[in-house]
């Protein structure tokens, strides 16, 4: 029993150290560190595509994190860092693409769909109301009889 507890503890410690290994890539100041975390969460890991750079364990993601770290230390702004990566990987690397000709529909489509939904809902409500009104008139005539 004691052996197993020891093994489990060692395994858990191992996991904890593993997690810490990612955080060891920390930056000199807290401000840089928080910008680093924000940036790596909004950049896509190109290899796994639906994970952010921050979440991905693959080699390329760690290389790109290194790139972001080095640019932060070199004093680049967030926008300069984004531009640097977009030049190489295209807008696809951004989870939040900029508003331009090719990406406009991504931003506009939800509002168009919402407008269509509101229009349809409004029409249905109005139709129902007319139905109810028609029913009332039937009841009215019934009562008169």
């Amino acid at each position, binding site marked *: 029993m004691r052996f197993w507890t020891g093994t489990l503890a060692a395994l858990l410690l191992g996991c904890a150290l593993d997690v810490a290994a990612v955080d060891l890539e920390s930056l000199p100041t807290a401000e840089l560190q928080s910008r680093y975390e924000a940036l790596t969460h909004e950049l896509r890991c*190109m*290899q796994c*595509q639906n994970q952010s750079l921050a979440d991905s364990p693959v*080699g*390329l993601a760690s*290389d790109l994190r290194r790139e972001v770290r080095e640019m932060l230390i070199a004093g680049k702004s967030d926008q300069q860092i984004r531009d640097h990566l977009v030049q*190489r990987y*295209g*807008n696809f690397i951004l989870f939040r693409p900029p508003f331009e000709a090719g990406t406009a529909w991504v931003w506009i489509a939800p509002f168009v769909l919402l407008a269509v939904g509101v229009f349809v809902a409004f029409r249905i409500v109005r139709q129902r109301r007319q139905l109810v009104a028609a029913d009332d008139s039937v009841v009215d005539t019934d009562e008169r009889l």
Partner: protein
Amino acid sequence: VNRFLIPGIAFLLLALVLYVGVERAPNRSTQQSALLGKPAPDFDLPSLTDPASRVSLAQLKGRPWVLNVWGTWCVGCREEHGVLLDIARQNAVTLVGLNWKDEDAAATAWLADLGNPYAAIAVDRDGRTAIDFGVYGAPETFFIDERGLVQYRHVGPMTLEVWQREFLSRLPRRALP
């Protein structure tokens, strides 16, 4: 009939949007290089075959060339290797290898084992040049024209069909085999 017309049209439109999204968008956004029509990024890296010399963009100026990104850890690279050897035999264009995040010993053994299709191999140990090229997975193959502009990128194992359609067709006439 009228009751189903508008929902029917809406359904078809939505189906079309989803179809385009699933079928086409992933290819367009990932396979099309962001570098198309732009100058190939500069690099100056050690050579795998001759540790004393270097492989750089400057050496490749003024002629069309092809960059193939590979590593011994990459399954697709083994798959395409025979095709690369065929391509090298055609002798139509300078084929440069970028050995990406690999080990020299493993890479050298691979070439001794399978044959070396490359005119030169640059060693990208820490993956910086690959990032400059926007590489996201090996194998990837780039065509760079004689002005030094990136004209095409192929993601995945090279095939003779892709080679003929997308690479040979971009070579100047006189260079064709």
